[in-house]
């Protein structure tokens, strides 16, 4: 049964909407059993890529295979082997959690008994037993997302697509979803997830593909990617504006490049490699010197910083009105 064939192969995918290029030569190879993160800003093409691979959208050019089947010509075979969780939790809000899972189970052709049994298993696996017979309207965002994930797991799919699984969730909801995803991965499912948070990709993914304007511009492990862009940063918020030069001097001693200074928020930060060592040293030195500090900590580079480094241009935010009309068109 074990084959070395990749779970996902995408070659030169192209997709355009009128004159807008959503995907423009998108290449990706995802080996079996890995968790791959697609990272990119709004409008980069993450959703389009995932929807093409999940057979929901036709491609205009290029080729894609999922679980060994062509998404364009063998859609039905692909659909038997994938789970798909879209950008919005797609469950029937009128039904209960149990009713939802049973309905989807029947539609996956498990038969009446099989659907009932599978629903019970999944409710347990995703910690939804207590809420099983409540209407979805009473669910929290995290619970909804978990139910959504459970529904994509009915057939124990070979490949699972998750489009921004935690967007809009509070930290607790995010943790719940992350836990659920990890437990799926432990069972050998290949996961392709999209996210706008480097943090999330870092937590879940073994490899990250960064997307910009419809193509992959970097494809690496999170560690390599972060090294490439200067790794984590020590950040200090000075108490007084007058203290900023003193703080900057201390941060400069531990960081690999010139520290960056934001006078307005009295923030000084610099890239570091030895994270904990650098943090302790900065904290100790500042305390010994009696420099007043409001906050001190480690933080990961933001997606904006990743982008700036990789592309030389900041992650472009599309004008929100244009984006909305496009989103609406998408629904038609």
């Amino acid at each position, binding site marked *: 049964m074990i084959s070395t064939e990749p779970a996902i192969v995408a070659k030169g995918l192209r997709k355009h909407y009128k004159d807008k290029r959503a995907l423009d030569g998108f290449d990706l190879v995802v080996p079996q059993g890995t968790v791959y993160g697609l990272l990119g800003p709004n409008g980069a093409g993450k959703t389009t890529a995932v*929807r093409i691979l*999940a*057979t*929901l*959208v*036709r491609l205009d050019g290029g080729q894609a295979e999922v679980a060994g089947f062509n998404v364009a010509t063998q859609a*039905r075979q692909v*659909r*038997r082997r*994938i789970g*798909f969780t*879209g*950008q*919005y*939790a*797609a*469950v*029937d*809000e*009128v*039904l209960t959690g149990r*009713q939802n899972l049973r*309905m*989807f189970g*029947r*539609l*996956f*052709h*498990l038969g009446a008994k*099989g659907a009932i*049994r*599978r629903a019970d*298993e*999944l409710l*347990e*696996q995703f910690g939804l037993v207590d809420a099983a017979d409540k*209407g979805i309207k009473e669910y929290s965002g995290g619970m909804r997302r978990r139910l959504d994930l459970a*529904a994509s*797991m*009915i*057939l*124990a799919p070979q490949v699972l697509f998750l489009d921004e699984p935690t967007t809009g969730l509070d930290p607790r909801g995010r943790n719940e979803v992350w836990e659920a995803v990890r*437990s799926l991965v432990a*069972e050998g499912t290949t996961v392709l997830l999209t996210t706008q948070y480097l943090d999330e990709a870092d937590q879940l993914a073994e490899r990250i593909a960064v997307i910009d304007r419809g193509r992959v511009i970097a494809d690496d492990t999170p560690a390599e990617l972060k090294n490439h862009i200067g790794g984590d940063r020590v950040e200090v918020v000075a108490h007084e504006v007058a203290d900023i030069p003193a703080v900057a001097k201390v941060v400069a001693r531990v960081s690999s490049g010139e520290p960056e200074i934001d006078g307005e928020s009295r923030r000084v930060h610099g890239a570091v490699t030895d994270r904990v060592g650098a943090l302790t040293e900065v904290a100790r030195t500042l305390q010994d010197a009696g420099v007043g500090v409001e906050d001190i900590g480690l933080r990961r580079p933001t997606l904006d910083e990743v982008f700036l480094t990789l592309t030389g241009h900041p992650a472009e935010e599309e004008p929100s009105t244009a984006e909305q009309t496009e989103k*609406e*068109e998408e*629904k*038609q």
Partner: protein
Amino acid sequence: MSTPSVESTTLTTELDGPGRRLYWAAADSWTIVRRGLTHYVRQPSNIAWQLGFPIVSVLLFGYVFGSAMSVPGGGDYREFLMPGMFGMTMAMGFMNTAYVVVYDTARGVTDRFRSMPMAPSAVVTGRGGSDLIGASLDLLVLGLTALVVGWRSDGGLLATLGGFALFLLLRFALIWVGVWLGMLVPNEEAAGSLFAVAFPFAMISSVFVAPALMPDWLGAIAMWNPVSSTVTAARELFGNPVALGDSWVEQNALLMAVVWPLVITAVFLPLAVRRFQRLSR
């Protein structure tokens, strides 16, 4: 945490061969129908709203205006009105279809269905099935209300059932209009504004008043409205006052009550299917 019984859930039924395909298309449709029925069970208040409007209209038009309304050619106005009420409920019913379709599409439920190995046609046929069951329920409640306010069918059992079948036929045809519109409008708010289409569609007809009493141009529209044909044909079958004009379309109401739904289906079923396929654009 339990380990899922992967063996038990791996797919044993491959969807190939015309026989199996037909079987699963039917089975999947039935699953979607059950979903619709569960909605009714879980939200009984929805049925109340859905039926509230025609029942209130029965009381309003029957009792408040009823005494001032007359049926050309004679007859009791309430007897005349009841088949109209049935027809109006069927005519407005496509809004419910459209609403559910918009809701599913906007919330990603349609996408989930499309990403599954189920029969794609079941999404639509299942919708149609549960809508028809809902419509039968509507007709049952309305029929009982009508009996309470004194309406009777003098047409005999067969003709009476035939009349109700015509109402369901109209509703069936309008399912495709609802599915098509549901995929055309972007969101639920916009679906609400479909009322602006549904209201005149139901009203500019022989539901409340004989087209002969309307200004000529309006009467002509009302006469040719498919709702009028169904309502007029049902009045004939029920032996209720009909107020027949002498135009061809009114004289052949029974024929047109069958032809119109077929025409509507022939136009809107392919449109709905095409729209569904365009989701993958």
